[in-house]
């Protein structure tokens, strides 16, 4: 095989990888398998310290005794604020095959404080049934508590699956839900994260 042909094929493979990756990422950040980071504690402020997108961690204010993350954030991409899932931006295949079954994930429930914490999670999504799935070994499914202490700088993982009622899909704002992170021992609210389901193409 001529060298020029080999290089052309290699560029073809490269272009395919880049193109597919950009397409997949555009879905990851907006509508399908949306991932986000959540940092706790937020030092008594009931504000979000989170960002959308794959990646993380992101820390707005660094605790003075914790040096691993620079104040102002180290994330390559993403924004602070509510997690927004826009079902109107779903890919064609998702919209055709399975439009109302939603998954959101955090692999970066990160302790940005200085003391180890056990956390309790609470999520409310407009009264919908939620399926909680994690690849953490130390998880109390009933109490929704991490049964291990999360060390400073360490993280925790959780995925959620739920179904949007079909009759509610055609609305600009379908649901405004929330994820709360509590200290499992003291029941202090460590941070809260708004999660919005919208449909930018609703009539």
């Amino acid at each position: 095989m001529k060298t020029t042909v080999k290089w052309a094929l290699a560029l073809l493979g490269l272009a395919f990888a880049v193109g597919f990756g950009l397409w997949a990422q555009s879905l990851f950040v907006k509508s399908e398998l949306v991932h986000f980071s959540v940092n706790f504690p937020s030092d008594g402020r009931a504000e979000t310290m989170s960002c959308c997108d794959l990646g993380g961690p992101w820390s707005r204010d660094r605790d003075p005794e914790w040096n691993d993350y620079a104040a102002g954030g180290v994330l390559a991409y993403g924004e602070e604020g509510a997690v927004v899932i826009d079902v109107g931006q779903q890919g064609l295949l998702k919209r055709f095959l399975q439009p109302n079954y939603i998954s959101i994930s955090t692999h970066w429930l990160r302790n940005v404080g200085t003391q180890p914490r056990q956390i309790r999670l609470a999520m409310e999504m407009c009264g919908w049934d939620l399926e909680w799935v994690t690849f953490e070994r130390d998880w109390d499914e009933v109490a929704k508590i991490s049964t291990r202490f999360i060390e400073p700088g360490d993280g925790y993982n959780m995925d959620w699956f739920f179904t949007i009622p079909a009759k509610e899909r055609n609305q600009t704002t379908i649901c405004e839900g929330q994820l709360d992170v509590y200290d499992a021992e003291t029941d202090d609210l460590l941070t809260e994260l708004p999660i919005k389901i919208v449909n930018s193409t609703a009539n």
Partner: protein
Amino acid sequence: MYPKAYRTLRRHWFYRILAFLAGIVLLYAPFALLTRLILWASGSPLLPDAHRICMRMPVQWLAQPWMYGTMLEQPAYLVVILVLPGIALFAGPLFCGWLCPAGGLTEYLSRIVPPRFQIDLGGRVNPVPIRYGFTVGMMVASFIGGNVCCSFCNFTHTQNIISAVFGDFTGIAYWASFSVVSFALWFVVLGIFTKGGRGWCNFLCPAGALQGLTHSLGRWLRLGRSVQIERTRCSGCKECLSLCPTWAISEKEDVLEVNAHACNVCMDCTQVCNRNAIAYRPNKGTAPQRAPETAGAN
């Protein structure tokens, strides 16, 4: 309906399928015995499954030095960039050809589909440049906001299938657009409807690309072993070429040769050659290649 060579290969495939099942037991939930060992030794709090020994992200991270610390902290990530290429340097991509459940699943299922229904690219397409280009593209994509690791992962599909077999349908229940595309490519188009069943492996697997690279390096450095053709014995029947699942055997100026970048040392070819012309031989001391004698002289 099926090539006669399939009968010759039955015994060999029996051993390969045993190894394939061992790969599932070692790496995939609900067993994942090797993964459990690594997680226990490293003190990881995570549940064992195919994602813990990730075969894609560490390859991408080779281009991201700031991730090297993560890989050292979680040694399971070192399997695909150190252990498997290290083995391939001396013995070839034995993981690919024998253990990998993702590649093995499509290969063995493809043998059930009659060849006339399959895309036959053996001897016609050299997949190696495309696979290297794809692997580099995976690294490039991460710098410009693309994601090819998780969105294009056939190992996840394999884990989801195996989990479903054992009653956990979580993985197969959710369909993302990119998951549907990657599944269709891996399992259907480049899988069971491609002759050999290894189209995905040949074109799109970064783990295979890395192992192919070190395998060819090992051959060039005359280290270890590789599948080679003794040209003085070869009659040019091309039985090996027609069977090779990775299209590693090609004909160049009437001479058959094995491309070490593509070969996964499954050794199916060595079983069907009735002249012992193709064999898994030491690279050191390989006889100089000579032009074959004319047909009939052997």
